[in-house]
């Protein structure tokens, strides 16, 4: 499973972090940049799908598709 976040779109809403905290996180507290695990294990699919659905700017994509 491949995850991609379009960082040009991301506005740090953090909804993906709520949905899948072990895949998405805010890296450096000072800069608040989103970091993520690009190849999470298959057990994380449901959580990542939820992240795709809950991102208000539709920045999260799964397996290259728009979700």
């Amino acid at each position: 499973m491949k995850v991609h976040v379009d960082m040009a779109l991301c506005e740090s809403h953090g909804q993906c972090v709520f949905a899948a905290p072990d895949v998405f996180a805010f890296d450096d507290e000072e800069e608040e940049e989103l970091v993520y695990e690009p190849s999470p294990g298959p057990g994380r699919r449901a959580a990542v799908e939820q992240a795709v659905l809950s991102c208000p700017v539709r920045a999260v994509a799964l397996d290259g598709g728009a979700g």
Partner: protein
Amino acid sequence: MNGPGSVVVVGAGLAGLRASTALRERGFTGGLTVVGDEPHGPYDRPGLSKDVLTGRRTAADTDLPIPAGLDARWRLGRRAVALDRVGRRLLLDDGTVLGYDGLVIATGAAARPWPGPGAPPGSGVHTLRGREDALALRRALTKGGPLLVVGAGFLGSEVASAARALELPVTLVDAARRPMERAVGSVVGSVLADVQKAAGVDLRLGTTVTGLLGRQALEGALLSDGTRVAARTVLLALGARPNTEWLRDSGLRLNEGTSGGVSCDRRGRALGADGRPAPDTVVLGDAAAPPHPLPGDGSPAHLGIGHWSEAVDRADSVAAALLGQECPAHETVPSFWSDQFGLRIRSVGLPQLADRTEVREHDPVRSRMEVAYHRGPRIVGALTVNRTSRLAAHRERIKQEWHQRTIPV
């Protein structure tokens, strides 16, 4: 599985689209019809008070993508005017009658109009809910100011921010003592007031608009402190009211007094007059009034929330309820965001329920805040400004607090 053979969704906005998508994802293969009174398919509203006004994004950028395989029949430009629950029939404004086995109510909310006194002038007075409203307001703003915004909630404050970004003179009026006070409390409200004033907004708090001046074209407004402000454009940002008039005679329980939304249980099943959840009718999004997360303490039984994330977070459990499927209780925590004056405001929970505000960080130089909201011994909400990284931990605590408690209905 004894699910419905056909489903009609009323309202082609975010909630209507997400409910439809969730129904298909849960294996619903029957006929799916979506009725919407706007000429457009689903689009997203948050950008309308932000980037669409400044011109950074176009209205078309707010289109919501329709998932492949949704296989819905769209009845756009059609309004539902009445519901016959016994006969399971829906009446549209062109006289069409649609039968259904399952019904999704997703009619959202409408901007409150000018309450008077007097009729508003024929031009120059705006509200903001839909795409046409945003385009009309943008056209008005590009002709120049001054702009008067009535109501300093999130919407009014965001529009004031957009207008300042366009370098228009802006007056922002609110009866409360601080902007957004109801939603974020007085501590954060005071900080926001300072930011708005520093950005050049003429902020008039503890003040109401007692009259709009001008017969044909707007000339200005009269305020309760006796002053007069000139305005070429007025935005009324007085809150929203759920679009539920068409359900008035349906026998569903409308949450009069607090919001006007359709009262429902935690899974979104609409409550009948007897207070029992209907198995064939669910409600999602701004039209819904789900159970109050903290019952007791004199709080109302149901609460209209009106945040983007509500429609998104509850879509799956609402779809499961309509299909008669079991669904692990999704325990949602409302969340809200607002972007204004360079501030990234993010909140979780329901700060408006708090009786105490705990400021955990406030760095005015870097415009950062982290605030926790408590009610008695419990955390009920949190808010950050340019500090989203701190929010997830609060959300987790709120989730635990709330869901230890049993919620009736």
